[in-house]
């Protein structure tokens, strides 16, 4: 019999999408627990709605390239890439091969650092702080590589209609290759740690198991779907930019638990590193990848474009509609986190409260700050705010059986 319901609104900072845009995005998970077992989770949104889609409608097509880059800090390159490709479809512009290869390089570097970040966060959530520090240290190398390529460590603003914003010199290409090779060794090491460490296995294996059928019917995307045996990757199916020539391998695992999702990310990061090295070795020299923006028309012809990109968190789609004016008539952005976080409330049911942050982190919600949980005792009506990480570690007053109030 359920005689006590503990309501735990967990306040974390995640980017769910342009509707609640950008990096530091609070979402509320209301978890209802029977003892320690979570029986229901509600996802509440709308805490950081910036109205980016409305903003895009009142700015010109070219200004919007910079606005969509600000939708999400971690994956700004893929956002600008997918938007710029939509504009290119409407305009009928085709970037040259060198530009397409450089775009792929920027996006793959972004994938490596994004996957490293969430794996580091996962290590921190399960109480493995040393691993968190180590992964973040090595992630800095990737950020440096991204700075060499795009000029910006985080915000790249690298994509332009018809090409990229700056070319890569041979000297910098050599430096990039050296950095990526050294990062690749570390990625292999971290993958081994996640495979063999007993503590990580105990916290992640068989936690938040997602069946293949549920992943498909709830429209879950990216590494979450691929960790449940769904072979979906826009890079392979859409073959945008240079992916038709580079043919990336798709990592799919069948286990469907949190561990499988993290292992998919390590596998993908390794493949991205290989892909980046291949791009640097076979960088074409067919043209100047930096187009002259002044030659582009101010008004775009009337038309619609729908583009997909494989962002680090899954498939990101843009729908751009032009009515022949200076500004777009409508831009619809559908980010992968939007479906992965909001549609996955069923995933937490049946697991303990200590598993809740693990499952949430395995969905890659980009937790970037100190998270807090609010535990309410309905009998006394008292409320206490406790750190999210303390809750996840299962230690102290709130862990284990400490707050089993019977």
């Amino acid at each position, binding site marked *: 019999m359920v005689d006590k319901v503990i309501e735990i609104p967990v306040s974390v900072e995640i980017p769910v999408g342009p509707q609640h845009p950008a990096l530091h995005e609070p979402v509320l998970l209301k978890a209802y627990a029977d003892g320690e077992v979570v029986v229901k989770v509600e996802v509440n949104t709308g805490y950081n709605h910036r109205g980016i889609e409305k903003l895009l409608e009142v700015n010109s097509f070219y200004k919007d390239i910079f606005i969509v880059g600000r939708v999400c800090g971690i994956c700004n390159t893929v956002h600008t890439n997918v938007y710029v490709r939509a504009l290119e479809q409407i305009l009928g512009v085709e970037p040259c091969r060198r530009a397409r290869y450089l775009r792929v390089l920027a996006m793959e570097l972004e994938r490596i650092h994004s996957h490293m970040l969430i794996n580091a966060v996962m290590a921190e959530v399960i109480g493995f702080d040393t691993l968190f520090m180590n992964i973040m240290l090595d992630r800095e190398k990737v950020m440096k590589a991204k700075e060499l390529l795009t000029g910006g460590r985080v915000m790249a603003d690298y994509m332009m209609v018809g090409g990229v914003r700056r070319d890569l010199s041979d000297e910098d290409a050599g430096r990039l290759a050296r950095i990526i090779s050294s990062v690749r060794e570390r990625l292999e090491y971290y993958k081994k740690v996640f495979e063999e460490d007993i503590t990580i296995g105990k916290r992640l294996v068989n936690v938040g198991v997602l069946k293949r059928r549920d992943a498909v019917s709830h429209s879950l995307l990216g590494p979450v779907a691929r960790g449940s045996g769904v072979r979906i990757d826009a890079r392979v199916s859409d073959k945008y930019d240079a992916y038709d020539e580079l043919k990336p391998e798709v990592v799919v695992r069948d286990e469907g638990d949190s561990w499988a999702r993290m292992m998919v990310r390590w596998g993908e990061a390794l493949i991205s590193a290989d892909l980046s090295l291949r791009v640097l070795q076979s960088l074409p020299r067919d043209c100047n990848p930096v187009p002259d923006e002044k030659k582009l028309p101010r008004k775009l012809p009337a038309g619609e474009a*729908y583009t997909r990109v494989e962002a680090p968190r899954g498939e990101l789609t843009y729908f751009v509609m032009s009515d022949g004016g200076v500004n777009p008539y409508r831009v619809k952005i559908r980010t992968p986190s939007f479906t992965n976080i*909001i549609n996955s409330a069923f995933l937490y049911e049946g697991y303990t409260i200590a598993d809740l942050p693990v499952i949430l982190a395995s969905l890659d919600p980009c937790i970037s700050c100190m998270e807090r949980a609010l535990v309410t005792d309905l009998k006394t009506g008292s409320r206490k705010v406790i750190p999210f990480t303390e809750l996840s570690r299962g230690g102290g007053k709130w862990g284990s059986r400490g707050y089993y109030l019977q």
Partner: protein
Amino acid sequence: MKDKGVIRLDYFTVLLPEEETIVFRTTIPRENPVIDSIIDIVPGAYSAELEIHDLLGVIFKGNEFLKRGFFAPSDIVESGVYPLRRG
């Protein structure tokens, strides 16, 4: 679509395993924007239907989770404005 007095709904569907994208396109009148929900067939439409209801005011018949304030702040909800509607 303000000239024609309609709201256009596009359902972008990706079919596995080939990942073919199929678009189902329909229009509903602006004065009475009601359409049947597809949440019973595709549970993944949950987030999209909630978002469209909040920002454009389309009512999806059969979706019991529909609510204002999913994204829009409370003052916008109280004034009864649908932020993304044109005209």
